[in-house]
């Protein structure tokens, strides 16, 4: 395997990450999950396709003049996608402000420790749940009806997937 495959794969991921940061800083899209997928899975496809005709590879000095074969471009794409999947799975911790991580930050700032009541006072319980409901509606997993909240088709697929997945593992359905 040529080093160019690693460089193109890492480069495609880095470019996706830079685009994501710039886009989010300019104005975070409301349905951010689908755009996150577009950035981390769509952008590498364009770049991998471009390497077939030598566009990004030929701009690297010691690789000048070369291009990737179809299999090498696929390998570079797989690397970019794997790294993208790792990032996409990390993103909710930042976007949704994981309560566990927020608790740790509060404790980090209080060497003498905090009682449970003092910790609770630093959270708005309704916002911890309300924001999650808004997210599910915005990203079209849940629909608001006059009777209440119902699942859309993607929401039903996701709920069934996690129930089946935990069932195979021998674990009860859970969630936070």
């Amino acid at each position, binding site marked *: 395997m040529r080093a160019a495959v690693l460089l193109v794969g890492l480069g495609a991921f880095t470019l996706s990450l830079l685009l994501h940061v710039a886009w989010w800083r300019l104005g975070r899209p409301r349905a951010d999950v689908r755009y996150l997928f577009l950035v981390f899975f769509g952008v590498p496809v364009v770049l991998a396709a471009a390497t077939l005709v030598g566009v990004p590879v030929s701009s690297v000095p010691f690789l000048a003049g070369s291009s990737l074969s179809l299999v090498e471009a696929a390998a570079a794409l797989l690397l970019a996608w794997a790294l993208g999947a790792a990032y996409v799975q990390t993103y909710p911790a930042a976007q949704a402000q994981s309560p566990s991580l927020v608790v740790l*930050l509060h404790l980090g700032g209080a060497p003498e420790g905090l009682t449970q009541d003092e910790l609770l006072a630093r959270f708005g319980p309704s916002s911890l749940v309300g924001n999650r409901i808004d997210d599910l509606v915005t990203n079209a997993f849940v629909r608001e009806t006059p009777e209440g909240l119902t699942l859309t088709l993607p929401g039903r697929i996701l709920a069934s997937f996690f129930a089946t997945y935990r069932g195979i593992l021998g674990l009860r359905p859970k969630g936070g």
Partner: protein
Amino acid sequence: MAARVSLVAWLVLLCGSPLVFFTCHVLLQRARPGATPQGVALKACALGVLVVVGASLVWQPQLTAGLYAALVAGAIGYAYFHLFNMSETARRIRILREIHQAGTLPVAAVHGLYEGDELIQRRLERMVTLGQIDLREQRYVLKGQTLYRAAQVVAAWRWLLGFQDGPSR
């Protein structure tokens, strides 16, 4: 031609690595049903990376190929762990499950799922079990540094992405 076929077969093996992680996870979890689920998932991911990278080195015994396989398997293993962790801790997954079971659920009923201090209480218990915090004389204090450092990095990243509140500290 043979080298190209071998490379394609190797990439197919790497693409199938999520199945390796899942198989390791099912076997370990079924063997130790009483163990902490997240601890089992972590061990399954570590085992999965070893299996995939080991098989990969037998197939393509080169430095760049080994590095490539370690990056791909490591990233997929990390993503797999977080996928499982979502099923264990994510509020969104629980809300989806509750609505799925009920068919339709009023917004107030969803809020009612987290009555009182349950949401924070369960997280505190989990972090005590994981050895990240401790309860001394009714006060929670930091014990481990691993998750705390991760929390600081995530808070800094949140700030970089332009979220309004920025890092807490």
